[in-house]
């Protein structure tokens, strides 16, 4: 274990290295660029490759190709680049490619405010590409958690053969905090299953966990990586039974491991809570202070912070707290609120959106919450 002092962007890079990153492709974009700059210096010394591609489309496609060549791979970007990666995230889904995509959120739409923060990409992370799929998405609230959740993102990607998204933001990216990093053996690192033997005829035939072992290139498997809807042979299958079987499995394999993917933390939650504040990412930091301040003022209030934004384990979430009234605090127009409202359908759920380019102040957060108290 090593203690250091780092920014969120450095923590992302270090988390990836701890997880076994061997290939990084990216394109410069504020506020994510330090991740690539840091890795460009460090990864080659660890037998890895960092390449600055011609755009974000190339970056994500190269990362997917590298993953098939057997390397743990990652790319990082911000909103505009993330938009460009949409199609390839669908490619990673249908080809069941482990790859980690870090989106360091900034204000949008379009060029927006490149240097300032936002949480407006939370639904983009969920429904970025066309088609039916579930891509796990984690949102850290601190430098330490950026490190921890990037490791978890790699583990999830390798375990479930899926792209995984980490949603950081400009605040987390440039925040400096103490960071504890793990050495080998101090944290669980998961590696993809690889088939035994050589040539395989059914590369997409799943094990009982619904995940086919990954026949990476160069081992004699004679793999077909297929972006078309395919059967277990990897052959194009434009008929309903194959389509249903594939799409059902791709979604079920993720949902089957909700226990592993879904995570949250509660603070000061008792069986007596009147109110619960719900938040995530950098906004949760000031929401937490607001919760403490409201408790000081006599409110029976607690807080829940999502670490996993998607997929949500409804049952776990509903049973997390008995508070009748829930206020969702987020730095966007009120996006995760829509889900929370659906999950807690027998409670009163209120949206407390903030549109703030800086970390919202305590006064601002108290203001938007107080409307509902």
């Amino acid at each position, binding site marked *: 274990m090593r203690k250091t002092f780092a920014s969120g962007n450095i923590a992302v890079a270090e988390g990836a290295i701890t997880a076994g990153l*061997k*290939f990084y*492709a990216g394109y410069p974009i504020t506020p994510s660029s330090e991740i690539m700059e840091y890795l460009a210096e460090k990864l*080659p010394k660890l037998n890895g*490759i960092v*390449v600055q*591609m*011609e*755009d974000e*489309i*190339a*970056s994500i*496609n*190269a*990362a*997917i*190709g*590298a*993953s*098939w*060549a*057997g*390397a743990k*791979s990652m790319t990082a970007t911000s909103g505009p680049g993330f938009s460009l990666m949409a*199609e*390839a995230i669908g*490619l990673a889904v249908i*080809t069941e490619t482990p790859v980690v995509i870090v989106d360091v959120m900034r204000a949008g739409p379009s060029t927006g405010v490149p240097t300032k923060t936002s949480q407006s990409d939370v639904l983009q992370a969920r429904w970025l590409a066309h088609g039916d799929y579930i891509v796990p998405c984690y949102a850290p609230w601190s430098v330490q958690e950026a490190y921890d959740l990037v490791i978890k993102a790699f583990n999830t990607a390798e375990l479930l053969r899926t792209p995984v998204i980490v949603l950081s933001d400009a605040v987390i990216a440039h925040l400096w905090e103490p960071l504890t990093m793990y050495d080998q053996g101090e944290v669980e690192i998961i590696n993809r299953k690889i088939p035994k033997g*050589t040539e395989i005829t059914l590369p997409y035939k799943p094990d009982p966990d619904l995940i086919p072992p990954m026949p990476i*290139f*160069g*081992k*004699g*498997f*004679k*793999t*077909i*990586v*297929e*972006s*078309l809807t395919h059967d277990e042979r*990897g*052959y*194009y299958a434009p008929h309903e039974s194959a389509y249903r079987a594939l799409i059902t499995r791709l979604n079920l394999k993720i949902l089957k491991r909700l226990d592993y993917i879904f995570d949250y933390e509660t603070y000061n939650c008792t069986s007596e809570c009147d109110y619960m504040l719900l938040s995530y990412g950098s906004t949760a930091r000031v929401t937490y202070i607001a919760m403490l301040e409201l408790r000081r003022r006599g409110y029976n209030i607690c807080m829940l912070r999502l670490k996993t934004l998607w997929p949500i384990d409804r049952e776990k979430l509903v049973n997390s707290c008995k508070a009748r009234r829930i206020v969702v605090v987020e730095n966007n127009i009120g996006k995760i609120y829509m889900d929370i409202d659906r999950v807690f359908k027998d409670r009163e759920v209120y949206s407390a959106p903030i549109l703030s380019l800086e970390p919202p102040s305590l006064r601002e957060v108290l203001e938007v919450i107080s409307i509902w108290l």
Partner: protein
Amino acid sequence: MAVESINIHPLDKHLRVDRIPTLYCPGCGIGITLGAMLRALDKRINEGLIDPNKIVWVGGIGCSARTVFYVRYDAAHVLHGRAIAFATGVVLANPELLVIVVGGDGDIAGIGGNHFIHAARRNIDIIVVMITNFVYAMTGGQVAPTTPRGVKTTTTPMGNPEPPLNAIKLVLALNANYAARASVTTPHYIENFFYKALGIKGFRFIEVISTCPEIYGRHIGLRDPVEMYNELKKRVKYKPKPSIEDADIDWEKGIIIGEFLERNNPSYLELLRGVYGK
């Protein structure tokens, strides 16, 4: 004695024969191209220079890109235009792999143009075979970046107003190690050039001028496969050491094929090893 499967073609061992027949139309040049490439590959494998388990074929989207799922090798049929980007990741993550990209002119030089340029500039260690049919065929005959001026396509019904892109000239302006052009009417040149490319490092580009009687032939009045083949054959001329100007494609004046570029610049992997110090 039970009769086991009988290989009826010497190249069958390179193919997923259970996927044949292919989807290609009668008169299509893609099969000729693939056959020539496989003969060259077969030679290189027999020479012991290439391990068949280390070959990866990558295709984007389009008729030509689909060749990758007929070959019995590691292969990826990925996104439209992104085959070169994917291939770049593959070869950088595992430099032991021989990566072959096959695509049409729309896939490689249209939507994939940016990746094409930068892979050639970096001298990435891949072979790109672009099968030029001058049209978007799989989608039904729209104008391509290579369509000559004046040709009526489904999206240029009054005639194509745009000057075409010349992929050979583009590659010559960059840092590639090999650029050649052949035609489906000269499969021995496809085979020779591909054979040569298999023995070179860095970015290697081969353009294959192809026949597409079903779609492009319909646009230019050569709907009959034999007629289109013969008309192309008449126009194709091999030239040793052709110049940059020779790369012009002009249906009236003829189409020069040959090796436009051959050199030994450090490949991307060699350049990387240089700066990484290993």
